[in-house]
């Protein structure tokens, strides 16, 4: 895995989510990017039941369990701000066993689904972020597969993103900014998932876009 950046793209003035996504697709295709299947990232929210965990830490932090189609046999469990756990999919089964201590907030399930594009060493995933079956926004994930050091390739990635995102190019993701200079941990997609989690949290708080239900 290379260096990955996840950002939210605002919906164009007077357009629907789908129309904005179509525009992005068109731009990518004009660049010469090639469609390569689809992807999804989802996130379940769990909260500790009142009788579980300590009375010391109140309110208890939410536990997020995420999946990424890029690593289909893995299950990623996160607390906001860490710690993060990479596990196999049996972790989902374990959460079922734990349901008397951790309850799943079904209405808070957020996911991003969309098309995966390949452009040379770049992998671009444009996804529609949905929550309770209503479209809430658009996520764009850009991965530069040829490098694992964010500092070395950030400017290149920025330039590439400018070519289809224009002025919406994000700053260096905080997961990288927080880390000391050096090697990016490439073994799992945890850094990517942390960015998706941030994006999903933002989306969850924002108002429902009127009339933007999913096709």
């Amino acid at each position, binding site marked *: 895995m290379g260096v990955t950046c996840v950002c939210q793209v605002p919906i164009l003035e007077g357009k629907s989510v789908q129309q904005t996504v179509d525009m992005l697709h068109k731009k990518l295709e004009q660049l010469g990017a090639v469609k390569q299947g689809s992807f999804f990232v989802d996130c379940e929210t769990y909260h500790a039941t009142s009788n579980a965990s300590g009375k010391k830490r109140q309110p208890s932090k939410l536990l997020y369990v995420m999946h990424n189609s890029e690593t289909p*046999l893995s299950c990623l469990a996160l607390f906001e701000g860490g710690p993060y756990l990479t596990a*196999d999919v*049996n972790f989902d*089964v374990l959460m*079922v*066993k*734990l*349901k*008397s201590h951790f309850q799943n907030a079904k209405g808070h399930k957020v996911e991003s689904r969309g098309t995966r594009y390949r452009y040379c060493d770049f992998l671009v995933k444009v996804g529609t972020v949905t929550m309770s079956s209503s479209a809430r926004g658009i996520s764009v994930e850009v991965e530069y597969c040829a490098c694992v050091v964010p500092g070395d390739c950030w400017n290149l990635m920025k330039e590439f993103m400018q070519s289809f995102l224009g002025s919406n190019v994000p700053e260096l993701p905080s997961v990288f900014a927080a880390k000391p200079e050096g090697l990016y941990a490439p073994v799992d997609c945890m850094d990517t998932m942390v960015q998706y989690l941030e994006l999903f949290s933002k989306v969850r708080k924002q108002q429902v876009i009127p009339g933007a239900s999913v096709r």
Partner: protein
Amino acid sequence: MQQREEKQLEASVESLISRVAHLKNSLHGFIYKLENEYDRLTWPSVLDNFALLSGQLNTINKLLKNEKTPSFRNQIIIPLLLSPERDEELARLTEQRVPVFSHEIVPDHLRTKPDPEVEEQEKQLSAEAARIGPEVAQKQIQTLNKLCSNLLEKLNNPRDDRESESAAIRQNKPSFNPADTNALVGAVGYGKGLSKCRPPGSVAPGHPGQPMMTGGPTLQQVTIGGAQGHQAGMAPVAQQQAGQPGKMPSNIKTNIKSASASMHPYNR
């Protein structure tokens, strides 16, 4: 006089034929089993079949060596009539194996000497044997005998060792201790006899009737298809789970206590 001999010959031929027929039947049955029932044929039943065949062969040998049996060797068979035509009577007698009594097959069926090729080989061998002097031959016999006895010794000795070893285990030394089993099962299951990290009294070890784990959701509540067995390969093999939540039988408690005082009661 001659008539009596003839009668005797006839009787012995007849009994020989019936014995051979028995042998043939057994062979038939065995071959049939090997070809058709090989998948459920057990080794003991194969051995039974061999034993039967060997018994029947023995009976035939005994019959041939019997004093009353006239020497078949002295009987001469002369082919009086050879014919290239099919002989139905002959075919019936031989179960369709020999339909024609012709020039082609007679030398084979009435042969009293080995094949010329075999004869040639035999001649060569005896010539070679004759070339070796008696001393050399003696030496070779001795070497062979030595090799054989060495091999036998090697095969027999460990067997004695093994037998005495397992006999010793069986007789005097017990190889396991039920109290240890309970102590170990209690330790890996509930942490009995292991130092606790929790505050004392929260879950007392050996507390009778206290289940250690919540039952969790009943399995039926979870409904999903495609439960694959992929998980077997997921965790490293070395990471075996040892443990069984089981209550410690109360009469074992004393043993655990002494174990935790690092004085094992079964020290020898």
